[in-house]
């Protein structure tokens, strides 16, 4: 299914008029498509919005093709689309942000509201803070305004907090 995914993404970028190379690789639980070329900035978009939209549509198109071909949903893997390692860089900067804001929540013992983010970005933040004692995270708001809240337990002793600066 890697080949089919590569073909689909190439066709979509072609119709968008974007000059790019697409390479695909298959892992156990997903297919990764990597886009390279002179126009990756356009493929990524603001905060990765275009990349997310492209990824969403490629998965929808492949699901539709599979449905029409009578292929079962279970035999398909989710397809991730990345461009020049953008998702890895984004994940690293989100991790850094998560730890900085967690430190702030611990220090002030007050909930911290993170700027609105995509579901994928919020997920990275949730996972990053999932095992932090005394902290819980949840999402609030609707649609594009949905944001992560980092909430410290008021009765938890966080001990002396080192200053993470800002």
């Amino acid at each position, binding site marked *: 299914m890697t080949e089919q995914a590569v073909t689909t993404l190439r066709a979509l970028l072609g*119709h*968008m008029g*974007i000059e790019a190379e697409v390479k695909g690789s298959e892992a156990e639980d997903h297919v990764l498509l990597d886009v390279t070329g002179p126009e990756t900035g356009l493929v990524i978009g603001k905060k990765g*919005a275009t990349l*997310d939209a492209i990824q969403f549509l490629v998965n929808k198109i492949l699901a539709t093709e599979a449905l029409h071909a009578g292929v079962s949903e279970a035999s398909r893997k989710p397809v991730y689309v990345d461009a020049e390692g953008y998702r890895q860089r984004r994940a690293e900067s989100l991790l850094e942000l998560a730890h900085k804001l967690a430190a702030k929540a611990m220090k002030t013992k007050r909930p911290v509201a993170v700027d609105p983010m995509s579901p994928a970005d919020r997920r990275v933040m949730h996972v990053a803070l999932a095992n932090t004692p005394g902290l819980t995270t949840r999402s609030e708001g609707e649609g594009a305004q949905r944001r992560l809240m980092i909430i410290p337990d008021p009765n938890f002793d966080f001990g002396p907090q080192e200053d993470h600066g800002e």
Partner: protein
Amino acid sequence: MSDDGSTGPSMTDLIAYLAKALVDRPDEVEVESFDEDDAEVIELTVAREDLGKVIGKQGRTARALRTVLSAASTRQHRRAVLEILE
């Protein structure tokens, strides 16, 4: 469908390609466009039972179509707006 002599890809072709790839009845996909002020308005019509396929849960597919259209039209320095006709 290019009306200004530009050699770039047509935005109506982009939407037609995506819509046909997402619906159960691609032969019933119709795309038309007209100019309105500084933008190209693209009107998409699909079979009644395929409307959900191009709109998606909470409008997510329609939003993705608009995001992709916006990126492609930015590249051509021309704004394009998608309208899904019911």
